[in-house]
């Protein structure tokens, strides 16, 4: 059983399109995250949800909109894709409410905008 799974693994799309990346965790964690890894492998947090509530919203264009239908899911929708959005996007989850634990990461979604 995969702890944190995200789909799709690869996504190639044209500029201007709208796309979504889905993430699910089966660990029972209360907090989920989206991270962006750029071409230099730098990891930067984008969003964090705790019990379906948005906790962290870093300086991210409002073309990016996270949605958490329940504690186990955190999807990322991107409107009007731009070339600079090309990156690897990682979903993660952790348990913060009852004592902090490490974050578990998905395998990543490599987004290429052409």
């Amino acid at each position, binding site marked *: 059983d995969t702890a*944190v799974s995200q789909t799709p693994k690869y996504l190639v799309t044209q500029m201007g399109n709208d796309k979504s990346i889905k993430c699910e965790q089966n660990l029972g964690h209360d*907090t989920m*995250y989206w991270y962006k890894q750029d071409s*230099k*492998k*730098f*990891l*930067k*947090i984008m969003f*964090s949800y*705790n019990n379906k509530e948005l*906790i*962290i919203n870093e300086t991210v264009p409002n073309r990016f909109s996270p949605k958490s239908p329940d504690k186990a899911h955190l999807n990322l929708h991107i409107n009007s894709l731009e070339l600079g959005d090309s990156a690897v996007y*990682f979903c*993660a989850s*952790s348990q*913060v409410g009852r004592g*902090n634990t*490490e*974050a*578990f*990461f*998905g*395998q*990543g979604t490599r987004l290429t905008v052409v």
Partner: protein
Amino acid sequence: AQSVTQLDSQVPVFEEAPVELRCNYSSSVSVYLFWYVQYPNQGLQLLLKYLSGSTLVKGINGFEAEFNKSQTSFHLRKPSVHISDTAEYFCAVTPSNDYKLSFGAGTTVTVRA
């Protein structure tokens, strides 16, 4: 706010040699510290973590790290590396009562025969 500095961007090392990856952090509150490894085209996998207690923590694959509060460091070591240890290594920190995991810029370890 927290920040993490990984002092070495690339570390080439020969097989069976020891390796040390340096990590320094800054924070005004107590923190938890982590080392993650990313193999090519894969996600991040936890190597080890420091939450409290003994400052020497042991992780998977023979890695260990030492938390030094006075020097605000959390250096990662392995006494003898294998080819399969070739990967990107990330140091990360989070406040003990918060949600935000901040990463260093990563260290690329290349193990050669």
